[in-house]
């Protein structure tokens, strides 16, 4: 008999020497108690998650309302383009900028 066969035989004898144990009388009640405990903790976790999400949503909404009210309507009553259109100095300013590009009158042109 080779060592491998002896090992296989040993495992077979071990299987016979270790019969499946009988479950105790508290096995099923204990199992259902654990199932119920896990269900309860899952429900608690779910409730906490719901409460957290609801609070986060309420806070987001409150912040949005608050920041909307904080905007000063007099600060930016019109857009930049509208502002430029209404501003009389706007075009003058642009013209003055261009005027600087001309050479001074006392300098000779080559």
């Amino acid at each position, binding site marked *: 008999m080779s*060592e*491998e066969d*002896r*090992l*296989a035989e*040993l*495992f077979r*004898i*071990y*299987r*016979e*020497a*270790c*019969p*499946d*144990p*009988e*479950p*105790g009388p*508290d*096995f*099923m009640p*204990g*199992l259902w108690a*654990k*199932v119920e405990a*896990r269900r309860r903790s899952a429900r608690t976790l779910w409730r906490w998650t719901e409460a957290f999400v609801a609070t986060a949503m309420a806070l987001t909404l409150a912040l949005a309302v608050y920041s909307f009210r904080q905007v000063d309507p007099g600060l930016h009553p019109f857009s930049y383009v509208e502002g430029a259109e209404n501003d009389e100095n706007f075009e003058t300013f642009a013209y003055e900028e261009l005027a600087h590009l001309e050479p001074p009158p006392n300098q000779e042109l080559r």
Partner: protein
Amino acid sequence: MRIDPETIERARKGDDVAFSAIVQAYRKRILGAIARIIGRPEDVEDVAQEVFVRLYFSLDQLRTPEVFEPWLYRLTVNAAYDYLRKQRRRGESRMADLSEQQIVAADAVASRDAAWEESRRAGYREQVQALLQEVSEEDRILLILKEVEGLSLKELEKIYRVNENALKVRLFRARQRALRAFEKSQAARRAGTAAC
């Protein structure tokens, strides 16, 4: 299969009576497998209950009732791994306690014949458990499932989710390592006998 697919299907839909029927059909087998894997009789029921609690909460993920048994074994192996990992963190020894309990159990047997039979069995148990202690946790569980629980390669494929060739290689290596440990223990035994 120890249970009909209809019962599994009913349990999957949340029928607690069907779930109880599944537990009753498989609990002994699962208790046996766990006992052989973890080697601590006092914790076997706890781990088995954990397996069935996991089963209860994950039954809806089972695709077909045909793969139920390998799937239950997978849950068993995972729960056993988790238990062994926790034990390792606690730094407790397992087999040493077991041998003592076995000796106590053997001593408690009233009849002399029964005591002799029990001590013979305890001897085999100790020998195999000492042998399995010499290999890694992964090898030990694989060898127990294949050699002791008698699962087929097809079932093991489903449990480990690897193809047959990879599994054969793993099994071959695990067997080789166990064989080396066995040869070593045999040599030590022979040396012990010669010394006497």
